[in-house]
């Protein structure tokens, strides 16, 4: 087995032609390891679904290659790739029963009847739908249809399972259940999952690794922790979680903010930079504390577990801190209070503007 189950090499996908061509994917290279839960994360139109469709073979790239388990599959039609897809709309066959849907791929492959029946039984057990085998698709709820779509795509035991925003049609509670279910299925089958989503929380909680995409390019690939704690650019920092962005000038010893304060920052860049600090990485201290930034409280928003404290620095720059709410619910601040703001050690990141 190759070190990477699937590799994209300089993939380009352009729609239209000439001056009107739009690059949905712009020179994308990605390596996905066997058995990984890999997520393509980005806003709509970032190219994540296009990349998935190229992997599946529904579309051909304008340039570049796709290697599946070391073999070039770039121009192979979808029916000859051992890759299956869970579609956003599920795309279940309405004229077939649940069992016939799940057994469809095996029937197309010409597997013997007994083997198909055995695999279908095993797959339905895997997604806990044994009792529904004879049902029509239209008799199932949305969550059950989702499970059938999963069972159908897993039945031929593909090398890679592609999931195109499969949870977006479910309500919040069911969504949480299916997130756990997906992780369990991936663990039990050992199949590589490539998951597409625009939901950063979903990506953080489910993935082994994430590729953050924007404007047809891969911005950053890393574990959820790497992506959250060390975003490589402003886009990634803004897309994953909430972040304060402060204009600054990088110099020896830290970053000089527009307020004139010098704060300690990870990384050394010189010239105009952006300093990114997560709101939960800010502590409020008494005003005039050494090393703290002077700020005035502008607004307090109570979120239950925590309270968002919106402040203005001395030159008016906006800054938000997320403070854990105490048992009483009252953090003891009011609008207009003067406070000192202290970033926790290592919390401030310097990014190229």
């Amino acid at each position, binding site marked *: 087995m190759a070190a990477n189950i699937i590799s994209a090499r300089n993939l380009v996908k352009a729609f239209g032609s000439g001056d009107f061509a739009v690059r949905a994917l712009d020179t994308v290279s990605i390596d996905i390891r066997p058995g990984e839960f890999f997520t393509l994360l980005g806003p709509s139109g970032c190219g994540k679904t296009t990349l998935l469709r190229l992997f*599946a*073979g*529904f579309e051909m790239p304008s340039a570049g290659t796709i290697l599946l388990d070391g073999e070039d599959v770039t121009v192979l*039609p*979808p*029916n*000859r790739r051992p*890759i*299956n*897809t869970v*579609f956003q*709309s599920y*795309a*279940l*066959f*309405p*004229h077939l029963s649940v069992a016939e849907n799940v057994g*469809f*791929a095996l*029937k*197309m*492959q010409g597997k013997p009847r007994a083997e198909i029946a055995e695999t279908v039984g095993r797959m339905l057990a895997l997604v806990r739908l044994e009792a529904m085998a004879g049902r029509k698709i*239209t008799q199932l709820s949305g969550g059950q249809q989702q499970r059938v779509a999963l069972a*159908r*795509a897993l039945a*031929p035991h593909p090398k890679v399972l592609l999931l195109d925003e499969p949870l977006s049609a479910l309500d919040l509670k069911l969504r949480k259940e299916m997130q756990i279910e997906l992780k369990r299925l991936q663990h039990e089958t050992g199949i590589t999952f490539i998951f597409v989503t625009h939901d950063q929380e979903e990506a953080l909680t489910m993935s082994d690794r994430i590729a953050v995409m924007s404007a047809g390019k891969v911005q950053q690939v890393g574990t959820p922790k790497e992506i959250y704690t060390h975003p490589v650019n402003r886009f990634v920092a803004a897309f994953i979680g909430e972040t304060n962005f402060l204009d600054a000038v990088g110099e020896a010893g830290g970053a000089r903010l527009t307020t004139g304060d010098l704060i300690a920052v990870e990384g050394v860049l010189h010239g105009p930079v952006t300093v990114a600090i997560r709101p939960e990485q800010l502590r409020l201290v008494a005003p005039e504390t050494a090393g703290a930034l002077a700020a005035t409280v502008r607004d307090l928003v109570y979120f239950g577990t925590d309270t968002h404290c919106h402040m203005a620095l001395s030159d008016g720059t906006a800054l938000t801190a997320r403070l854990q709410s105490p048992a009483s619910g009252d953090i003891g601040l009011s609008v207009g209070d003067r406070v000192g703001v202290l970033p926790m050690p290592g919390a401030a990141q310097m990014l190229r503007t």
Partner: protein
Amino acid sequence: MAEPKPFHVADLPGVGPTALLVFAGLYAPILTLVVYSFNASPSVATWDGFTFDWYLKAWGNAAVMNAAANSLIVATLAAVLSTALATLAALGTTRRPAFFGITAVYAAINQPLMVPEIVTAVALLIVVAAIKAATGYAGLGYLVVAHTAFCIPFAYLPIRARLEGMDLTLETAAADLYASPWQSFRFVTLPQLAPGILAGGMLAFVTSLDDVVITEFIKSPGQDTLPTYMLGQLRRAMTPDINALSAALLGLTLVLLSGFFLLSRRKS
């Protein structure tokens, strides 16, 4: 203050009576025909009691049976052939990106709906006469070919409507699940399309069964379908067995059109 009532065409004075009048105009003659097909008197002027005699008389008439057999053979073959061709045409015009001149192709496929039937009939008469003279063949083949041609749009329209309403993702999913293009058509597209194909076939069958003009022009001497036979009988004297035949044709058409309606309504 009362809510202003939204305008509705049914509130206009006289809409109800007008509607009744229109329906009466449409159905009163047909009802009269059906009623008189059971009249024991051979004259429409008097009602002599209820009878099935005219149906039995038509049933026992060799010429009627021969015409009915011709009608069924031509309509069945024309329906099957035109539906097969219409299915191919519908796949060809919907399962590919729109191309330059596609509107012209639609117009060409639907030509029989637009060109006056009498023009087609005269044109066919000339061509068929030439072929008859050259080959000596005078069988039902001419009628089958002509009926197939003018039935195509009737079969094409419901099939195309069904294809356009189909979710293309299903075919993508089939390909994803290792179905070859042929398997994808056979196991996913065709089963979804079946109601459209059946509906198209029924419309084509009824259209062929009812045709008079083109049939009258190109049929060989002595050859008759039910409509042309009935037309021929009318030239002499109106007999009640024609009423019975008309009522029977009406019954068959009603059964098929109800089938068409039920099938086209069952769109998952």
